[in-house]
Structure formats: structure tokens, C-alpha cells
């Protein structure tokens, strides 16, 4: 990790600690809990997409695997939430290996299609295997997870718990990209052939990072199940996989901070828009929920057009040029190219 990343961590941890006091309402705390789940899944997805350069439109499926493993093992087998979560993560990893070995031989659109197909299959199983998954009626009565004998009953307790998981996940991810594996992955992203020629075992690395990102998604799914206490196939459809990819792409593929920012932005956007609705109404414009989709589309389009590297890279570049301009002003020559 670089010094800048430590600064980033301090800001993140500071914000996590301060936010509940700022928002001061259980409802907003709840929104931030859901944002934490998305963050965790996006960190894993960013390792795969941004660093290894492999696209996956199937991560909703791994979230579903984690959620269903946790839901079913706790309610039907009476396992403890922690063991069930570990079992879910292990299962997701195993499935990622099985799915990854053939699919990661594919490239570009074909890899995207294969993972999309996988997401679709898992969703169909969740809907149709009624005896196993409860079908469309879902799994009821999933317990809350406990920590050192305390049950995390209130939203605020769960908020700190979920965001601690995000911080730990992020820290681990940073360590991985700074290791030999991380350098190998970036080499694969640059050019798979060149990486291979330089002695990187590309296929093994790709599958390993795919499995790792599946574990992130699975843990995020388990945390979701323990928070909502009910799951049905609805939240784990193909559209959710696409939303995750969008979050990572909006934030910026090439950096883990981008995944965090993208996940936060898109999770909180509906709430931000509802803040905007009240002042709009005050000046006589009636903002209807139906307009949501137009606003989303516009924001995505603007980011893709003007910040193709994502929000994080865009913000970083913006800060840098502002800093340069500031330095030039200090020297008294703001309009001279150097």
C-alpha cells in the first residue's frame, strides 16, 4: 500500500465513524448498510475486472450463493451464522473454480456472455428448485448474525459491523495487488501474451482472482441475508450483476478506490434524488419516481463520455490539475505551458 492509500483508509474509517452521527436517522443508516454490501461485492469485482482485466456479468450469482447458503444452513440445518457464511464462501469459491476453468479461456464478449449465462442459471435454480431454495416464496426467518455473544440487533450495530467487513476486505485486496500476484494480474491486463512470456502463469492467476472475487460477493450476500432476515430470488437476478459492473465502471475500473466510490454513489443515488425532490417541488416542479431512470441514464452517460476512466480517476486528475494550476499561480505564470 502506498502512503496515499493510507490517507484514503483514514478518510474512509473517519467517514464510517462520523456518518451515523451526521445522518442521525435509522433509515439512512439502513441505506448505508446496503451500500456496504455493494461496496464489498464491488471490491472483489474490481480485482477481477480492473486488475486482471476479465469481465464478469455473473457476480449476482455468487451473492445469491452466499445468501442462500447462509439462509438455508441457518434455518434448515441450525448452523451458526458464522459457519454458514464460511461454508457459503467456500461453496462460492469451489463453484468459481468449476465455472472459471472453462469460461476464463474465453475472451471479451464471449467471457461476458458465459458469465451472464451462469448468473441466469443460478437465478433459475433459485426460482425453480422449490424444495431446496423455497422457490419464489423464499427463505423466511433467517437469524441476525452475532459477534462475541452479542446479537447485532440495531441498525447502527449492523452498520459498524458491515463497514468493518468492507474495511478489512479492502485492506486485504490492497495487500493482494501489492504482492507478486497483483503485479502478475496487472501484467495480464496489459497483455496476456507478454505476461505469459514474462513467466506469469496467466490461467492460474485468472482463476484464482475469479474465485477470490466470488468469495467477496458471497460474503456480501451472507451479510445481506443476515441483515434482511429474508431472501427470495428477486434481488439476485441478472440485472443485479449488471448493476455491480456499472458501479465498478462508474467509479473507475483501474483502482480499488474507484470501486468503493462507484458502489457508494450508485447505492446512495436514489436517496440523493429524493433529497432533490423536495426543493424541486418547492419551486413548482413535481419530481416523479418515474424520472429516476432518466437521471441515472444521464449520469452514466456523462461519466462515460467525459470521465471514461471513471469517477475516481476523473476526480484524481481534476485534483492534480487544480494543484498544478495552483503551483503555477504561486510562480505567477498561470497561462504558460511547461
Amino acid at each position, binding site marked *: 500500500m502506498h502512503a496515499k492509500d493510507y490517507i484514503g483508509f483514514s478518510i474512509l474509517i473517519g467517514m464510517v465513524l462520523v456518518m451515523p452521527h451526521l445522518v442521525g*436517522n*435509522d*433509515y439512512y443508516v*439502513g*441505506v448505508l448498510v*446496503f451500500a456496504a454490501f455493494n461496496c464489498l461485492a464491488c471490491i472483489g469485482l474490481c480485482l477481477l475486472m480492473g486488475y486482471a482485466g476479465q469481465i464478469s456479468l455473473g457476480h449476482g450469482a455468487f451473492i445469491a450463493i452466499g445468501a442462500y447458503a447462509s439462509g438455508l444452513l441457518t434455518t434448515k440445518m441450525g448452523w451458526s451464522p458464522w459457519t454458514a457464511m464460511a461454508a457459503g464462501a467456500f461453496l462460492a469459491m469451489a463453484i468459481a473454480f468449476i465455472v472459471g476453468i472453462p469460461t476464463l479461456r474465453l475472451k471479451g464478449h464471449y467471457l461476458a456472455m458465459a458469465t451472464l449465462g451462469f448468473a441466469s442459471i443460478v437465478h433459475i435454480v433459485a*426460482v*425453480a428448485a*422449490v424444495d431446496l431454495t423455497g*422457490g*419464489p*416464496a*423464499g427463505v*423466511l*426467518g433467517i437469524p441476525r448474525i452475532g459477534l462475541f455473544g452479542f446479537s447485532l*440487533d440495531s*441498525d447502527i450495530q449492523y452498520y459498524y459491523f458491515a463497514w468493518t467487513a468492507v474495511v478489512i476486505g479492502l485492506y486485504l485486496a490492497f495487500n493482494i495487488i501489492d504482492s507478486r500476484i497483483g503485479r502478475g494480474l496487472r501484467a495480464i491486463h496489459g497483455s496476456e501474451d507478454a505476461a505469459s512470456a514474462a513467466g506469469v502463469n496467466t490461467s492460474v492467476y485468472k482463476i484464482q482472482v475469479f474465485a477470490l472475487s466470488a468469495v467477496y460477493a458471497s460474503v456480501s450476500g451472507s451479510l445481506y441475508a443476515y441483515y*434482511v*432476515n*429474508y*431472501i*427470495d430470488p*428477486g*434481488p439476485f437476478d441478472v440485472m443485479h450483476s449488471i448493476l455491480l459492473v456499472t458501479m465498478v465502471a462508474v467509479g473507475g475500473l483501474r483502482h480499488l478506490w474507484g470501486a468503493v466510490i462507484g458502489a457508494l454513489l450508485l447505492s446512495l443515488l*436514489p*436517496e440523493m*434524488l*429524493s433529497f432533490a*425532490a*423536495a426543493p424541486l417541488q418547492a419551486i413548482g416542479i413535481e*419530481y*416523479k*419516481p*418515474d424520472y*429516476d*431512470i432518466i437521471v441515472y441514464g444521464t449520469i452514466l452517460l456523462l461519466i462515460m463520455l467525459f470521465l471514461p476512466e471513471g469517477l475516481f480517476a476523473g476526480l484524481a486528475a481534476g485534483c492534480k490539475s487544480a494543484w498544478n494550476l495552483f503551483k503555477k499561480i504561486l510562480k505567477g505564470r498561470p497561462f504558460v505551458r511547461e
Partner: protein
Amino acid sequence: MFIVSFASILHAGEKEPYHIGCAFAITGKAAWLGEPERNTAVMIAEQINKAGGINGHELVLHIEDTQGSNTRAVNAIKKLIKKDNVCAVIGPSRSGTTLASIPVVQQAKVPMLSCAAAASITNPPEKREWVFKMGQNDSDAARRIYEHMQENGIEKVGVITGTTGFGDAGRTQLKNLKDEYGIEIVADETYAPGDTDMTAQLISIRKSGAQAVINWSIVPAQSIVPQNMDQLKMDIPLYQSHGFANIKYAESAGESAEGSIFPAGRIMAAKTVPADHPQKEVLISYKNAYESSYDDQVTTFGGHAYDAMHIIAKALEKVGDNPAKIKETIENMEFVGISGVFEFSENDHCGLDKTAFEMMTVKDGRFVVLDR
């Protein structure tokens, strides 16, 4: 999610307004449920406020869009309870979103009147103290179908269901109740919501020697079953579920749907309900009010919102806006509504029985109450 809290045209005195929360699937895949529910709730709130509010208190609605998604529903219900401080919640529209929201209202101790139908919404009662349900029971629809079959000497049936929550629940109920009515299910077929041809399933039903077909689904694909039966020249009776009670489905099935028999809430054929029926008056008044306010036909789902609004209004009138008192009042309430005659109790938070359904048929492209 947006606050569409609207101020009434007439300010109903100086008293504190009563706040009611609504969480409907106004947009998204289940918009056909949420939209009539929202429209109805808004219409009734306007009516009540125009008449001076409830005991002089203005009624303020806070409407949230769940988009049919569990996560959004949970957030919406939390927002209504914790931010808008509502004394009761109407919705959500779907069974899944309702089940996801139950832990929230159970913890917050605020009554929620769901507009969905799954039996698990109000069962087991000891874990659903704060949850009420406006939708009729699937099991009662199955009972009405089986009763009609018994009267007509049908013993062997072929069942064909859609693979959605609604279809799956129906399939389970039909299987659970068959022995009670001496019915034998000789064929059990399914179709996906996107299927465009059910000939294969119907041929195997024909081969099984079934005396009637039960088609149980809520998706548009169900309209293909009567058409395929026509093409196959199957002249055994076709029974459908209450999921068929949408005139658009009858329209898309055309001629072939004529004469098919299904249980449905009386609102679908309000005009042909006998004049002496206790619901007749509310049915006609709601139908007229809704169809004159909106360029749309009444639906069962809007009816759920009608019932929920009036039940809460009655409770507010009696005990004010204390959530615990509202819950207690509803538990002891009798109410003649759109979906049936509700008789709530501590252990029955649905309050409807099989009489909530009327057997109907399609005649000249319209729904009419079946002559006995």
C-alpha cells in the same frame, strides 16, 4: 424513492395531521399492481380530506415506490416509520417485498396492511403481530374451484401452472386440498412466464384423461392456454385462478376464453353482483369513483388499497394515531370492503374466507358472475 406527500386542498382545521405511509411497486415489473394501489390511496385521502378529515385531523399520505425490489421495500418502510413517523403502513404490493419488510415492522411495532396474498404473510400469527393482509387466500380460491367441480361431477383434473410465486403457491394449494374434495390430479404441468406455446403440456393433459383443466398463473402467458385448447379441440371445461381476473387477459385470449370459469373478487364483475349482496354498494361506489377519476378500469389490487385505507381510517377515527391502538382496533374490526367481508381477530390478520371469492365466467368478452 420520493416523498409524494401532498397537502390537501382544504386545510382540515388546526389539529395535527395523521400520517399514513404507503409503499407500492409503482414502477418496475410489478407496476400493474402498484399503480392502481397508489391511485386509489390518493383518491381516498382526497375524499376524506375534502369531507373535513378524520375527526378534524387532515390525512397526509407519504408514498414510496418499492419498484418491486426487496431492498428498496425494506428501505422504504424504514423511511416511512423512522423519518416520516407514520402511524400505519399500507403495502408493499408483492408477497416477496412484504415478507422482506416484516422484520422491520415487527421491530418498530407499527401496523402494516400488506396488499399481497401469500399465506405466510400472516402465518404464524405469533410472529406476525403487526402484519395484516388485504389479499384473499390462495387456498380459498382453490377451494372454490374444487367445490364447483364437485357440484359438476368432475373428479379427474389436469393442472397447469406458471412458474412464478403465484403459480407455485397455487400448485401447492391445489395439491394440499385435493383429497379433501375427492379430486384426483392426473396431470401436473408448468410453463415459464415467457413461454409462447403450451400445446405439449395440454396434449399430455388430454392423454391423462382429465375431465377439466385448471390453469393457475398471474402472467400474460396464461392467455395462451385457452387458445391452445381451442386449437387442440379440447372441449373439457377450463378453470382459471383469480390471477386471470384482469380483463386484459380475457381480451388477449379472445373467443377461446369464453365460458372459462374462475374465482375472483367481486369487483371484477361489480355490475353483475346481486343487488342484495352486502358488498354491492361499496363495489359500485368504488368502481364509479375510480373510473371517473382515472382513465383506467378498476382492479382487484386497487381494491386492496381501498380496503386498507378505509380500515386505517376507521381505526384512526376510533382511537387516534397510536400504532398499538390501531392494531388492537383492527383486530376487533368487521369491515365490508372490496375484497370481501373482513372479520379480523387476534389470530386471523387476513379476515377473509372463501366467500370473498365469487365464481365468474367470461361472457361476450366481459367478466360476469356465474349463475348457480
